[in-house]
């Protein structure tokens, strides 16, 4: 039974997606409850997977009993199951938040909307667990297709943003497919474990270098790495408030996780090959993205745009850690990846809630509105602490390991980039916080100010998660260290 757990995590949202027309046939409002129940069951299954993996080692699941490398294989290791747990819990919380921030012009599209939401989450699970490059591509495309559709839900402006996102995303997908066909042409296999045996010897081959570059460009578009980020701010800004937390938390992060998997699990950093040029490229681009993203965030007026550019900066920070090519760097990067997913979710929940309850979208409106809401302000303070990187939140420990790895490899430019990003992050968060607590003259309509219970739960759990990730960071980091030691990165 237990070896089927990764497939179960995927199947729960997937089967629910197929059953959605039945669930919503009488009453469209029932859909939301069913989806929430599905995400809750999925979170339980993901927690069981994580427990099992930590206790008994990774699960390798081959579909239909076809043994890899011929068959399709899923690998649930520590990193994958932690990520699956994170994404299913975040999906639960986003759905709770969706109860208090309804999507306005949904009309008769309730059933398709929830179907696509479920397919998005099952696609994300697939990316996290996929043990073969082609499978990874297919799931990335499923995630992207659901992303385009969800961004376009409000119509009007959002359609144009979704179209731009689609052009960029589809080009990224094509480049990724091109890269993996280079890999296939060079090695004759697409299974990651099998590739890991063959690719490190072939690193001098032009086909492998070309394939790696194309994959990096493709995934770079999907993870919105700095020069390729054009689609992201518009897409997140115009996406409905109800889904932007889910998109912001997970779309770019899973692409980044896929790149980390290719870099460390396939190209194999630890086993002698040491393609140091690739790592240099990764951390330099990461440094550019982190500083550039933070500067651009400082220049924005819209709340959602500030947070979107802040997210770009944090992608860069993770790449700085990963690009050190050391155990500390990879562990720090992975830990920060989980933190970043939670933080981005929280920021967009905050932006959506404040936009819905107080009608506040920009910094100026925030300054002139009198906001007296302990839940929103408290949650914002905690997420600000985590984004800036102050203890006891998880953001501090993630950043700590990233800086530590940069110091270990005497890479002072990277250290400077992290510190500069931190200062800029502090600057734009203080700007928001100052306007948030200012006593403005516009009083909102009293009937809308009451925080609904589902929103309280989702704000509370997200804040607790950020502090919890800090308090129990040593445990999570130990689990991640074990995984990275198995990669041959240990000293």
């Amino acid at each position: 039974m237990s070896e089927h757990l990764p497939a179960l995590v995927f199947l729960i949202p997937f089967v629910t997606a197929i059953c959605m027309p039945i669930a919503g046939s009488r009453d469209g409002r029932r859909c939301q409850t069913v989806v929430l129940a599905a995400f809750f069951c999925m979170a339980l299954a993901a927690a069981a997977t994580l427990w099992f993996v930590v206790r008994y080692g990774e699960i390798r699941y081959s579909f239909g009993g076809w043994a890899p490398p011929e068959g399709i294989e899923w690998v649930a290791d520590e990193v994958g199951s932690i990520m699956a747990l994170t994404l299913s819990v975040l999906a639960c919380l986003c759905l709770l938040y969706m109860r208090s921030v309804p999507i306005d012009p949904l009309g008769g599209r309730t059933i398709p909307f929830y179907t696509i939401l479920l397919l998005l989450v099952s696609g994300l699970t697939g990316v996290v667990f996929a043990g073969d490059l082609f499978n990874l591509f297919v799931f990335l495309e499923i995630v992207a297709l659901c992303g385009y559709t969800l961004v376009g839900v409000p119509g009007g402006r959002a359609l144009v943003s979704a179209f731009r996102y689609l052009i960029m995303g589809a080009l990224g997908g094509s480049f990724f497919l091109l890269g993996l066909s280079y890999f296939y042409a060079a090695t004759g296999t697409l299974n990651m474990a099998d590739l890991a045996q063959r690719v490190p010897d072939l690193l001098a081959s032009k086909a492998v270098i070309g394939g790696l570059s194309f994959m990096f460009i493709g995934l770079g578009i999907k993870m919105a790495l700095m020069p390729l980020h054009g689609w992201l701010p518009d897409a997140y800004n115009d996406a409905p408030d109800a889904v932007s937390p889910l998109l912001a938390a997970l779309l770019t992060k899973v692409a980044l996780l896929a790149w980390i998997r290719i870099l460390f699990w396939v190209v194999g950093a630890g086993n002698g090959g040491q393609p140091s040029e690739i790592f240099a490229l990764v951390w330099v681009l990461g440094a550019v993205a982190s500083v550039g993203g933070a500067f651009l965030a400082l220049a924005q007026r819209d709340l959602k745009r500030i947070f979107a550019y802040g997210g770009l900066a944090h992608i860069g920070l993770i790449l700085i850690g990963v690009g050190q090519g050391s155990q500390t760097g990879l562990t720090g990067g992975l830990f920060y990846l989980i933190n970043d997913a939670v933080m981005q979710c929280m920021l967009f929940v905050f932006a959506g809630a404040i936009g819905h309850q107080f009608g506040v979208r920009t910094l100026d409106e925030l300054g002139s509105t009198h906001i007296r809401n302990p839940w929103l302000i408290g949650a914002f303070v905690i997420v600000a602490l985590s984004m800036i990187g102050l203890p006891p939140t998880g953001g501090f420990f993630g950043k700590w390991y990233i800086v530590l790895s940069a110091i270990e490899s005497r890479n002072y430019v990277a250290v400077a980039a992290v510190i500069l990003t931190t200062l800029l992050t502090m600057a734009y968060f203080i700007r928001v916080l100052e306007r948030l607590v200012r006593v403005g003259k516009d009083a909102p309509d009293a009937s809308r100010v009451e925080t609904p219970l589902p929103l309280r739960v989702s704000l509370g759990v997200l804040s607790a998660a950020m502090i919890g990730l800090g308090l129990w960071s040593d445990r999570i980091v130990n689990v991640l260290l074990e995984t990275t030691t198995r990669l041959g990165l240990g000293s």
Partner: protein
Amino acid sequence: MLELVQAWLQRPNLIAFVTLLLLGLFITVTHHNLVKKLIGLYLVQTSVIFFLVTTGAKEGATVPILLSESDTVQADLYVNPVPHVLTLTAIVVQVATLGVSLALVAGIYRKYGSLDEDDILKRLE
């Protein structure tokens, strides 16, 4: 230089692939009409699929259906079927992307009454 040209000419499939890819990228980037952008995108995706199929080709090989059940399988006699299978899935992804993109374009046209990117951007402001 001559050897390089000879090496290129021996791989007409790769020349076709590169031509299609660059043409597609050029169309996607330069054209202002949204549908034409999609045509460019479609060309890029098709060129990649074309490249994937050609990696399975062998000289003198036939379709990968066993000629007789009793013989041991000789790999030289058949083309590699794996790229074809991958291609099928990639085509499905491509079709789905095209469907979603056309739906978006139809929505944009209904809202703004134009397919020209500059027109639409002007109206957005």
